[in-house]
């Protein structure tokens, strides 16, 4: 999607370029807030000064999908909300990632019923699942770091090529 697609098959140059691209991506991953329930409170706490998400280059929670790279689904997703979630995900620009924060977003949690989506991975591809009900801010940050590790280990050029 970026410069790397143009430089698809340039061997060692692209290897280091991949690293650079991945590094850049992990350092400015702007989240799309998707607070739906209790988890959203912890997500706000994560962004606030005690935990300060800005330390990871996540300056702002963006309600605008076009300016966001990472969707943090925080809370239970009802079947009525699912199409909205999918639409916002579709509107996000590539590359994009999804964190399912908390039990409900990950697999329905205690809401094992017909009204609640049994995990947002039914509608969007989830990269990282964060356990907890709700997860404390450290847990969300741990999830974000897990995502960083995943992004750093990825090969954007090879996937494209």
């Amino acid at each position, binding site marked *: 999607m970026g410069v790397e697609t143009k430089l698809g098959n340039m061997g060692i140059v692209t290897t280091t370029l991949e690293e650079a691209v991945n590094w850049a991506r992990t350092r400015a991953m702007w989240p799309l807030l998707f607070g739906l329930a209790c988890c959203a409170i912890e997500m706000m706490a994560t962004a606030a*000064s*005690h*935990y*300060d998400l800005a*330390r990871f280059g996540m300056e702002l929670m963006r309600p605008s999908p076009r300016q966001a790279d990472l969707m943090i689904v925080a809370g239970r997703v009802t079947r009525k909300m699912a199409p909205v979630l999918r639409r916002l995900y579709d509107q996000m620009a590539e590359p994009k990632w999804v964190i399912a924060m908390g*039990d409900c977003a*990950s*697999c*329905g*949690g*205690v809401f*094992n019923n017909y009204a609640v989506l049994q*995990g947002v*991975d039914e509608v969007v591809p989830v*990269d*990282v*699942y*964060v*356990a*907890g*009900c709700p*997860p*404390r*801010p*450290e*847990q969300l*940050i*741990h*999830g974000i*770091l*897990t995502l960083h590790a*995943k992004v750093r280990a990825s090969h954007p050029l090879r996937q494209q090529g």
Partner: protein
Amino acid sequence: MFKELGALVKGLSVTFKSMFEPKVTFQYPEQKRPVKPRYRGRHVLRRYENGLERCIGCSLCAAACPADAIFVEAAENTDEERYSPGERYAAVYEINYLRCIFCGYCEDACPTQAIVLTDQYELSFTDRWDAIYTKERLLEPVPPGARPTPQKTEPGKFVNPIPEMPDFPEWKP
């Protein structure tokens, strides 16, 4: 105009003042904020000092679990292959951490205090299957000097159907 400048200085003074206040940000992950003593994090299945598992596979934790996160399948102990002191042990013990709400009811329900919640909270997964912790991952390490399970034990040593309940009141004649 001076009045407006005064307001600016007044405002910025608050900013400057806060620059010299102590920082409140915890530098997680380098610096970890200690959790409260009763914090409920991920579970551990405990063992006795002799290495035998405390869990007797009674499924009461699964019954107490409001999120249906625990699955237990029991089996029968023999003296050749002994996992727990009683008759029954958990052959399969699984907790799905994406279901678990860390309420601690399982801990309350456990008659042998086999399952306890620890202060570990770093639980995030890239795959849903990884979130299902099996018995091997949940069991605490074998205490030093003890044998791992299954143990071969001498017949007649473990005859009680269930190990002694720790909170059973002492009886005095």
